[in-house]
């Protein structure tokens, strides 16, 4: 059993490239080149240099003393919140912009939910002097206003997605439409481990720097490279993929994937794909997704824009199906409270997405000596208004 992608672009039965022919040349060009380009020394060098000097990597692995005391276990936080632009998303956009340059592309498009990926994309486009169009659901534009402002400051054009649930799913549809209309000069920077092959694998590889660092950082701190648990929230699944990556095949390391249960898994207002989803095709990939019996994709709900997605990357569908990862669903309320707790115990305000991962601490009992790494995928600056409103601060 492997938990990595096979040479046909599948994780077990999930993955593939279910794309219209109009996208075939673009996706095929990428598929044929991405591994080759990533292996080029000049690519690696530029990527590593930018991660270090521009993004600020390595991100610390921080032992959360007060949180550990409270939950009577050893909790380490992987501080992706400290990356430039404030989330793990930039690891991927740095990689993809370099990829796009090497493929000779001139124009960049992206979808965004929480806006973090949009900001990360607008950022690398500014850095490289490339045109940038970001699609964002109308609802998300309203609830993640600071990130919309940031994209504009960075010179990007933000186009509202007005169809469907007007959230991430629909922004993705619009981005794909744009790509279909601009098949030659445009690269589509997908923001998570979703979409047609090779995107899930490519994005996972760019995010894999997270678990690569965890290995040596844990070695320094605990004298071993492996934790007992790696916990991460899952929207599309990129921060989780990055945190799991080097541990995928080592089943001593338990993986916990945290999904958004919204107002409750079975309230009809949820985004808990593993519980509610069935196998299907979304955004070019065969995976688990929330859908009607009739195969219509349903509109998800989560307080967190970045988790408000009816699908999950094919890697995660496979991790779920095989039982390699344990999936836990966390409601809005649980997440918000976990976010407040982290703020007040450790002085770190997490993105609401990341707060979902922290809520696991109340749901699952860890042993005193367990080393639990929680991926703190992003900072909460973009979510302040939501927190304030929620807690009436």
């Amino acid at each position, binding site marked *: 059993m492997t938990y990595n992608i096979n040479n046909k672009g599948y994780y077990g039965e999930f993955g*593939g*490239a*279910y*794309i*219209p*022919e*109009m996208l*075939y*040349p673009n996706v095929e060009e990428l598929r044929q080149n991405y591994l080759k380009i990533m292996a080029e020394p000049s690519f690696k060098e530029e990527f590593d240099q930018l991660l270090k000097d521009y993004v600020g990597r390595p991100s610390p692995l921080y032992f959360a003393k007060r949180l550990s005391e409270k939950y009577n276990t050893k909790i380490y936080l992987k501080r992706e919140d400290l990356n430039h632009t404030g989330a793990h998303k930039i690891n991927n956009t740095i990689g993809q912009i370099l990829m796009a340059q090497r493929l000779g592309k001139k124009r960049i498009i992206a979808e965004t939910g929480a806006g973090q990926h949009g900001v990360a994309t607008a950022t690398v486009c500014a850095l490289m002097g490339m045109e940038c169009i970001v699609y964002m659901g109308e609802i998300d534009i309203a609830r993640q206003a600071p990130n919309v402002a940031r994209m504009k400051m960075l010179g990007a054009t933000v186009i509202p997605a007005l*169809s*469907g649930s007007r959230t991430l*799913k*629909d922004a*993705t*549809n619009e981005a*794909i*439409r744009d790509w*279909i*209309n601009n*098949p*030659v000069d445009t690269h589509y920077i997908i923001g998570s481990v979703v979409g047609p092959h090779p995107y899930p694998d490519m994005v996972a590889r760019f995010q894999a720097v997270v678990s690569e660092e965890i290995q040596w950082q844990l070695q320094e701190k605990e004298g071993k490279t492996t934790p007992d648990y790696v916990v991460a929230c899952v929207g599309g699944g990129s921060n989780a993929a990055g945190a799991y990556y080097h541990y995928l095949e080592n089943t001593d390391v338990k993986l916990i994937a945290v999904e958004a249960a919204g107002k409750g898994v079975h309230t009809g207002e949820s985004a808990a794909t593993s519980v509610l989803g*069935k*196998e*299907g*095709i*979304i*955004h*070019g990939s065969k995976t688990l*997704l929330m*859908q009607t*019996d*009739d*195969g*219509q*994709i*349903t509109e998800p709900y989560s307080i967190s824009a970045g988790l408000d997605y009816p699908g999950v990357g094919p890697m995660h569908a496979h991790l779920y199906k095989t039982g390699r990862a344990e999936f836990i669903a966390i409601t809005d309320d649980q997440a918000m409270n976990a976010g407040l707790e982290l703020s007040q115990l450790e002085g770190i305000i997490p993105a609401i997405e990341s707060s979902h991962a922290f809520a696991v601490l109340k749901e699952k009992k860890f042993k005193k000596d367990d080393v639990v790494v929680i991926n703190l995928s992003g900072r909460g600056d973009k979510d302040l208004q939501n927190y304030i409103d929620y807690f009436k601060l």
Partner: protein
Amino acid sequence: MTIMNRINQKLKENKKLLSIYFSAGYPNLNDTVSIIENLEKNGTDMIEIGLPFSDPLADGPTIQASSTQALKNGMTTDVLFNQLKDIRKTVSIPLILMGYFNPMLQYGVEAFCKKCQEIGIDGLIIPDLPVDVYNDQYKATFEKYGLINVFLITPQTSVERIHFIDSISNGFIYMVSSASVTGSNSGFGEEQTAYFKRIADMNLKNPQIVGFGISDHKTFTQATEYAKGSIIGSAFIKHLSKNGTENIKSFVDTILK
């Protein structure tokens, strides 16, 4: 494939073919059959019946909106099959179902194909079912139920790939006029004409029918100069949204003149 279905027969006719797409269940849930009948009666050669999908990512705003409305109206795979169950009593031109792969997958691909055969559907167009997946996993099933699967090519499709697609096609090739989602162009320029000619000159075994951007007599004529026929989608949906199912004749007439 040995069985010669209605599509193959139609393609043999010595004329340029007019094929029309509409979203089933639009403007009203139960308009499907009357639209089909009307189209045939007024000279349409072939019909693509759109099975609406929540996330039609290869479609432009017009078709997308009609899909959304159709779903709101209550359209589902079952409803559509039910509406069409007696269609062959009144309609004899080729009927093609066009839709995204996920609803078919949920229905069960085999069950879906079987049902199509029972009803008398001749072919399928599934934009997000890639050629290789079809070839590896579903070809046998489609053939078992006598269904032609129609593939797309675009101006960006390589010569090798066109030959490959031609080799596995057994009806026609859906030639996307320009790489763009439906409904976003009007009128063809030199570039597209050159493309139509280039493909014509390849002498493929399957005839080509041009889709995307055909909206009137002029574009129909341009597109069929080199191709066997063309498909109108958004323009017809727009007509429906303005005029309802009345006056389909006048729409077809203006195309054919």
